[in-house]
């Protein structure tokens, strides 16, 4: 057993971190929230060029995957940099189209997967497991929809009113199926859908973990330089202990995210429960980190113009996306392994 990232995996994370730092992700997030998706799309292309989406696409469709451990590494970084867009949905769509290609119609896979891998196409996705909304449908190049009963996969023909999320960089809409292109039907769609939902929850968990890490990093930096009562606030024990607790939550969510990646890679029968556990832990830890970050920044943390807000609001949104805490907890106890 070696439950550690290897050097290459760790370096991949560092490379993405450097790239996203130099790309100035916060400006792209703000533009995306304001309806200008240009900078976000440019960022998307760079992320694709780094190989992130290819990690979810099988080799026969011009991808490198599926490589869930590397995907966890990437999504932690995407979360740390608050990158906008249907990142999770694009990955889950790739899994939906590509993973069980042996049982699904391959023409849809052939048409879409190489474009998802290369970043040419941004996909959104709606499935019963993820609730009624699709993320960023107004920007995505295609939205895949699995109907109730999980026997039919379509592309959406359009969508209802675009609705704002608590996170201004996320927009939600209910997709229309009527008039969309039917891609596959049959009982196999159900199995493919459940696998894709697991990957969506997994990628969301990794992204949430990254969001939480960024919140703690930024708050530690702030606590070291903000002075009150003639001392840096980071020397106050009440401040230290809140940050220590935030770190504990995140550092114990991390191995669950990695454990879920290993379970997905091995197609373990417990993978669904491992993913659910990771989603609960990372969601809770990121949310707790957001509460701590806001409290320790004081009023400046409560202002939209200060960048911390980008992560604070995302932490809350990701808790609800792709598996509520309660649904995931139920899943943990329903597992074959108990």
């Amino acid at each position, binding site marked *: *057993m*070696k*439950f*550690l*990232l*290897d050097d290459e*995996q760790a370096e991949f994370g560092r490379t993405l971190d450097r790239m996203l730092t130099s790309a100035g992700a916060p400006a792209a997030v703000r533009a995306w929230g304001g309806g200008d998706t240009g900078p976000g799309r440019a960022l998307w292309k760079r992320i694709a060029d780094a190989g992130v989406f290819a990690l979810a696409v099988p080799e026969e469709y011009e991808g490198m995957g599926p490589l869930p*451990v590397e995907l966890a590494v990437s999504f932690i970084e995407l979360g740390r940099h608050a990158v906008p867009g249907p990142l999770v949905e694009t990955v889950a769509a790739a899994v939906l189209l590509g993973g069980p290609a042996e049982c699904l119609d391959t023409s849809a896979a052939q048409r879409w997967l190489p474009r998802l891998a290369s970043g040419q196409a941004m996909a959104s996705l709606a499935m019963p497991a993820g609730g009624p909304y699709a993320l960023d449908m107004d920007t995505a190049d295609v939205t895949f929809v699995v109907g109730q009963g999980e026997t039919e996969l379509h592309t959406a023909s359009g969508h209802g009113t675009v609705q704002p999320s608590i996170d201004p960089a996320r927009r939600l809409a209910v997709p229309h199926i009527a008039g969309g292109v039917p891609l596959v039907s049959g009982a196999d769609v159900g199995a493919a859908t459940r696998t894709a939902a697991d990957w969506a929850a997994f990628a969301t968990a990794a992204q949430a973990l990254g969001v939480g890490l960024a919140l*703690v990093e930024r708050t*530690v930096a702030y*606590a*070291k330089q903000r002075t009150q009562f003639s001392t*840096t606030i*980071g*020397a*106050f*024990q009440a*401040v*230290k*202990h809140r*940050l*220590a*607790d935030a*770190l*504990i939550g995140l*550092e*114990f*969510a*991390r*191995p*669950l995210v*990695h*454990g879920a*990646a*290993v379970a997905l890679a091995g197609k373990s029968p417990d993978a669904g429960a*491992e993913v659910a*556990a990771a989603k*609960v*832990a990372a969601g809770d830890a990121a949310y707790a980190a957001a509460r701590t970050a806001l409290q320790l920044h004081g009023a400046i943390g409560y202002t939209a113009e200060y960048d911390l807000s980008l992560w604070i609001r995302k932490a809350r949104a990701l808790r609800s996306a792709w598996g509520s*805490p*309660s649904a995931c*907890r*139920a899943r*943990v*106890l329903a597992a074959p392994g*108990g």
Partner: protein
Amino acid sequence: MDLDFTAAEDAFRAEARDWLAAHIPASPLPSLETAEGFAAHRAWERTLSADRWSVVSWPARHGGRDASILQWLIFEEEYFAAGAPGRVSQNGINLLAPTLFEHGTPEQCGRILPAMASGEVIWAQAWSEPESGSDLASLRSTATRTADGWLLNGQKAWSSRAAFADRAFGLFRSDPDADRPHRGLTYLMFPLDADGVTVRPVGRLDGKPAFAELFLDDVFVPDADVIGEPGCGWQAAMSTAGNERGLTLRSPGRFTAAAERLTALWRAEAGPDDTTLRDRVADAVIRSRAYQLFTYANASRIAAGGSIGAESSLNKVFWSELDIGLHETALDLLGPRGELSDEAADAPAEGGWADGYIFSLAGPIYAGTNEIQRDIIAERLLGLPKGRRS
């Protein structure tokens, strides 16, 4: 990155499992915090050591199996899954032994370790004093030089199992003029039945009498029982403290086994409709799994030549809170029976929850309080400035 065990590790697991199944006492032993239970647990240590299962990670020459850290984790998982008795020798095995491996002489190791492994000599930790708990370096008990050894004087407090143990190890002030509180301390060992030692049992929260205060009045200790250099006791003690908080004190097997028992209790008692309890049971399962995987990651890091330092403080806070959460949830699940002591006629047969609960309450206090651990995390892992402490 993987979680696969080698064939040799699987074989080790199977061997441990078979041995435990064949040797675990048919009915649970009485609490090791009582005189009767202490004796029964000492006998169990003897049984374990006869087949070299009492200290699997030690070198074979001291009674161990040279087990790797991963094998040790596997053994612990099997041990707790099998419901084997608590370890009355754990202070010695987890705290004194690692210190001797690092700072002891070959003579000390040869003399002390085998008798520890067999349960023949059971050790108590004599660190805390009435006025010195978290601020251990403020301790006042003294070691005064004599011709061929040292004379100990003072008082120690909260010493687990000292009422029935054989010997103790602890820190004493040997140079009252040292410039800093943690200099001029000497680490040494003494028999609890030596002339000048008075052991006063103190009931714990559950009233069990193995906890004790020690009063020391000119207790003689030969030079052979000093660990490391006189005056340099702090350094030796701190390597022990790292062990205590880190991996060895609480291996994940304890919590994964408890989480499984909790899940079974939930299925039997509550059913899926009570979502509040369901969520708490799920959290206990999730957190014990997180602790297990976190430990596998640390073990992998150590196996690859790395080490864990202040990270062990993350461990300490996490497992102590997890332990309380597990037990509180179990008691809440039991409804009106949740207040019954484990000895009560109506207590659940798969019991131990009430005793376990009372014990879990001490977790955030001993082995360095969780407040002290949070300071360490904030200062050493997050790099926040030191506060007023020390």
